[in-house]
């Protein structure tokens, strides 16, 4: 990728990150932190490429470790975030149902 194009992407992505979470209620801080933790689990993709192109046993070992950790980040991050948000959801339905009565 052209160096400058990459720089533009980085700049725009940084502003997007700021803008996207600029107005978050405190109540969602933990799930959001957990959710962003899940999103950087995309490192798994890079780990897979690194392992896939590994030649020597050393590269294979480190690549294996990278995929192992990356998969842990992605899957664990998802499960934990999903569990937190599931509680909010059911609670919301319950109260809105109550209100409707």
């Amino acid at each position: 990728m052209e160096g400058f194009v990459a720089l533009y992407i980085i700049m725009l992505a940084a502003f997007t990150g700021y803008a996207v979470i600029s107005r978050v209620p405190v109540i969602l801080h933990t799930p959001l932190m957990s959710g962003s933790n899940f999103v950087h689990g995309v490192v798994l993709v890079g780990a897979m490429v690194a392992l896939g192109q590994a030649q020597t046993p050393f590269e294979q070992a480190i690549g294996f470790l990278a995929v192992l950790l990356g998969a842990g980040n992605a899957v664990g991050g998802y499960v934990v975030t999903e569990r937190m948000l599931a509680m909010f959801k059911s609670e919301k339905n319950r109260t809105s149902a109550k209100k409707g009565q």
Partner: protein
Amino acid sequence: MTREVVINSSYFVVAFLFILGLKGMSSPVTARRGITWAGAGMVLATLVTFAWPGMGNYGLMIIALILGGGISWWSGRVVRMTDMPQMVALFNGMGGGSAAAIAAIELARGETHGTAVTVLAALGALIGSTAFSGSCIAFAKLQGILRKTMHLPGQNAVNVILAVLTIISAIHAIVSGTAAGLAVFFGFALLLGVIITIPIGGADMPVVISLLNALTGLAVGFEGYVLNNPAMMIAGVVVGAAGSLLTRLMAKAMNRPLFNVLFKPITGEVRAGGAGITGTMKEISALDAAAMLRYARKVIIVPGYGMAVGQAQHKIREMTELLEEVGVEVKFAIHPVAGRMPGHMNVLLAEADVPYEKIFDLEEINEEFSQTDVTLVIGANDVVNPAARTDKSSPIYGMPILNADRAQNVIVIKRGKGAGYSGTENPLFYAENARMLYGNAQTVVGELIKDLKELMS
């Protein structure tokens, strides 16, 4: 050619889904949809990567995926809600470690990609390793494996020297291109994470986890640049920026600039007596406390880490319902950094089915304490410490606190007589209108429920 188009357009969709997902997660209405979008993005990204040209080692890859994903899936499922903060720290550490491992391969291969790529790979390695070891320490501390907060003599000088050594070793590793040089560099980077995180404790912990999360995002972004992978680049940088903002918001809520969090840790010494503490701690029985609550018009509950430790949230909800039955108005006041993570208390109360509309932020409720009959503090300490308002020598001076002490009566449920997690004495406990109720939060609230039922029969 077509394969590349499919891969690239898939990554484009992935980046879009991630941003949409994060956006969704910032509102309670769309939060669940948000994580589903992001999850779909992750699945797509993983699947399409199998088709990346020139790849091998598929057997190893699938084993690693199943092993890493399986263990995390299982541990994420079984962990108790109260232990969530350390799980987030742990999973975050894994991400950092993964980014560092990718960088290790790229740097060890030593192909000349050009200076920019090498520098970013090394930067990603440095940040990723630091985030990895730092997160492991954060996990160990919150899990209680590592109990003591250690202070090295001349901590800040040690930090600076180590950081400089790490950078020198990075340059040496790149220039020399030897495996040994690389190993030294990674060793220093890992040590740096440990040394920076180990003296940090108490109320600063959530800020540090958030910071480490942002750092991992950055490391992932840099490795995305190295691997020429736009999905990684965008997701990583977005998380890096969002995480930095979250970290700043949290540090601001505590009125502790990030610099102080990292370089002026709250010391663990209990200052004997403390400045201007008068009076004694007065104990109260559960029955008296129950009567006080029963005949109050308005009660505000201030939960803290003690509620999480005691798993008391369900009992508290039960008690709240009892009180409401007899017409007592009950509200919850949540300090931004109560617990070990922002929103920690909200998550626990939501788990126990406490309705949203009873839960209030610091700004929303702080004026109401003066018109409240009883404030019930459950396992919170530093966030209701009036020394933050008045005592300039206090390490938490200037932090906004909940005005619990301004209520007519304050009942404090506390495990023991010790000082708070930050190690500072709390004058509130000695105040004329305060009564102490010692014990594990769940047990004590259980007793309160029993006594309330008696009073109501």
